[in-house]
């Protein structure tokens, strides 16, 4: 085997270009450091007309938006999905963990829901509340200054609500609710469920001259061509390239392992160039891993050396352990009051305008932790699947279902915008028994040993999902709607989706002050190698009922400042 060595030594190599890697690249490059970003997918710029899917019509594609090549439909901006050809992963026993990967500059930030919630004071100290899991070694007060900076740098709309565990930030003004969201509010408030403007990283107002302002096309999942949503490429990597440091982008480059010297300190990374399928080595003083929680665990576990026989950072045997995703379950409703609606442009931003944060006290409940409720519906753009079962709702009106002829045209029109849905997204309890590990029997097409998952939901999560459906049904009745589908029972885990489906997997390199019980310290620095950092969601001790991105960004900023400091002091 011949490895092609680059003679240059970078200050820092950043592996991955999503939220964590993008933020780290920006902060480090602005401090004047030479940074190499190694990304497994191709270069991507949402403003490039050759790559742009925003504002395309379904009929511009022969499959009208169907999801053959991309899991969320072919216009969605994630190159990848739960299955990627040539990049398998395996499962232990009857585990069904679904692992979503997006191979492109900016990673999954190009298509995500932009739900940008701060963890609150309680979210960092879950064990104090119910004795389950572990507390973070840091608290809200440590992260708050960085949340504030992220708000101002990237932009997030929302409203000040003065709720203790849903801290307010520096918000842009939120958009007015859509009609079905007002129905939701009416129904939810009757049940005592709090409803408030959502908090999404979409620019409803200008924040600087490099980025445009939202023009309300509803397509943030396609990544915004005027950079009015947060995508890590357009909002972090591109600005980093213009800053005083030097940023070299290595795209289509799949990192295999972190290389180390005799003393066990990192010297750089080894990667495979997907175009020529050759192995390359890059050198740096510091390695920052931001490949996503599970990919980072895989790289660490594959980085075996004399100094780290168990894999890098794995003296505790905890790399890959405690992986946990958000809980999730969904329900749909038919709202007869929304039949035969007047049609107007209701696209709005690429996500909900209202949502419900967790509103209850667990003292009176049979499960720990909470969930938030997302709401969806409206007069959206048709795509593949629109018009399926055009009059199945006739059943509820005592009319005949099926048929043919031009009455179908009016059926489609009648029910357009009359169906809405709710999604619960909650906190699961991290468990040492849920883990990913290296499968010694399987490699991917680059010859890299793959991950094997072992994951079981517990009754904590099942009972939470059951509660979600009880709540959904109550809200739907309150707003005069009809619940669609049967209530999922115990045989279906009460509708709890497979782990991995919510794409919030975190916890594989957990943070802590005790090197025996954690992988990184409070600055996301490996206990076992002080020049290796993890800035994706791996260090999350617990996931909260919040989406992880805003916390990834805040912690990555905090860690990057620490790296700059430590380099200056010549400590690393």
């Amino acid at each position, binding site marked *: 085997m011949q490895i092609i060595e680059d003679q240059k030594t970078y200050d820092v190599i950043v592996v991955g270009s999503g939220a964590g890697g993008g933020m780290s690249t920006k902060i480090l490059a602005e401090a004047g450091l030479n940074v190499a970003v190694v990304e497994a997918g191709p270069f991507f710029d949402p403003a490039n007309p050759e790559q742009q899917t925003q504002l395309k019509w379904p*009929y511009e594609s*022969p499959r009208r938006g169907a999801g053959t090549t991309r899991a969320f439909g072919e216009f969605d901006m994630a190159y990848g999905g739960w299955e990627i050809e040539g990049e398998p992963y395996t499962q232990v026993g009857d585990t069904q963990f679904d692992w979503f990967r997006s191979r492109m500059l900016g990673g999954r930030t190009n298509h995500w829901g932009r739900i940008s919630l701060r963890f609150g004071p309680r979210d960092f100290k879950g064990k104090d509340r119910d004795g389950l899991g572990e507390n973070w070694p840091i608290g809200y007060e440590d992260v708050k200054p960085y949340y504030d900076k992220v708000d101002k740098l990237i932009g997030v709309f929302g409203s000040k609500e003065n709720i203790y565990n849903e801290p307010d930030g520096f*918000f842009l003004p939120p958009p007015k609710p859509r*009609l079905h969201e007002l129905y939701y509010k009416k129904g939810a408030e009757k049940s005592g469920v709090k409803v408030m403007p959502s908090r999404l990283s979409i620019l409803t*107002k200008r924040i600087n001259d490099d980025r445009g302002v939202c023009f309300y096309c509803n397509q943030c999942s396609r990544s915004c061509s005027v950079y009015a949503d947060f995508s890590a490429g357009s909002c972090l990597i591109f600005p980093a390239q213009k800053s005083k440091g030097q940023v070299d982008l290595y795209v289509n480059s799949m990192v295999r392992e972190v290389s180390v010297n005799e003393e066990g300190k990192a010297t750089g990374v080894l990667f495979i160039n997907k175009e020529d399928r050759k192995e390359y080595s890059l050198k740096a003083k510091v390695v920052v891993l931001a490949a996503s929680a599970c990919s980072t665990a895989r790289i660490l576990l594959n980085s075996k050396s004399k100094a780290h026989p168990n894999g890098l950072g794995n003296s505790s045997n905890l790399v890959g352990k405690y992986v946990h995703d958000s809980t999730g379950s969904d329900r749909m409703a038919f709202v007869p009051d929304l039949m035969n609606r007047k049609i107007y442009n209701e696209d709005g931003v690429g996500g909900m305008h209202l949502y419900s944060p967790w509103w209850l006290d667990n003292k009176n409940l049979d499960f720990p932790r909470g969930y938030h409720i997302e709401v969806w519906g409206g007069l959206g753009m048709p795509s593949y699947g*629109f*018009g399926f079962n055009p009059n199945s709702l006739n059943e509820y009106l005592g009319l005949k279902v*099926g048929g043919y002829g031009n009455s179908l045209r009016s059926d489609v029109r009648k029910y357009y915008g009359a169906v809405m849905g709710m999604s619960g997204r909650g906190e699961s309890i991290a468990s040492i028994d849920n883990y990913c590990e290296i499968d010694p029997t399987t490699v991917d097409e680059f010859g890299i040993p793959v991950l094997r998952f072992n994951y079981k939901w517990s009754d904590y999560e099942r009972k939470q999902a059951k509660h979600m459906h009880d709540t959904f049904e109550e809200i739907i009745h309150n707003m005069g709607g009809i619940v669609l589908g049967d209530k999922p029972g115990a045989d279906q885990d009460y509708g709890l989706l497979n782990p991995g489906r919510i794409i919030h997997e975190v916890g594989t390199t957990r943070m802590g002050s005790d090197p025996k019980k954690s992988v990184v310290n409070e600055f996301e620095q490996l206990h076992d190698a002080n020049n290796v950092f993890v800035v994706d969601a791996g260090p999350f001790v617990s996931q909260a009922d919040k989406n992880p991105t805003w916390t990834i960004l805040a912690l990555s900023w905090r860690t990057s400042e620490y790296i700059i400091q430590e380099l200056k002091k010549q400590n690393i």
Partner: protein
Amino acid sequence: MDRRESIRSLFLGSMAGSLALESCVSAPAEDIKASVWKYQYGRTPQEAAYDEKLLSTQFFENSELNTITKLANLILPPTAEGTIEQAEVPQFIEFMAKDFPSLQTKIRGGLMWLDHHCNQHYSKVFMNCSEDQQLETLDKIAYPDPKVKEQKQEVNFFSLMRNLVLTGYFTSEVGIKELGYQGNQPNVWDGVPSDVLKEHGFSYDEWEDKFADPAQRNDTAVWDDDGNLIS
């Protein structure tokens, strides 16, 4: 090789393939060429190559495509708003059968069932039946019973065709226009129109000052130390 070059070479590849193709199906090379160049929407090179491969082959026999077109026209007869042909529904169904191979046997078998049924009852294949006979046939398969879990295969076949025809129509240019969808264009959202709000008994009054003011959207945001927006 840049992307344009790579598309061109893919296309040349398909020309060579289409010579063989012409002998067994009637899709002329010109049509394939037009369809390959028609769809440009931010695909990766791999996705473009896959689409090009599907577009340069034909799954259904021409006689099957004729039956599909007839069936589609019975499901959604032409109106002044739009027709099955304008919405390119038969081409869409042909493409989807290659894109989702699991559809192939269901549709092909269902079309055979139609002919078998018509042979039994009218001693003619479906296409040679009168429209009354064709509709009489559809009446037997167009109404699934919502209370029954397992529908007969011919009922499932018709439901599948109805789904494909409707989604093909309403994702087309004429279909979207008929539906009245107003979006997919730059605009400024300032809430539900007031007449609609009123009709549904809602108002923004209780929280008006919280929301985005379209007039100030281009002023750069400035906050005070407490996070209050001051510009």
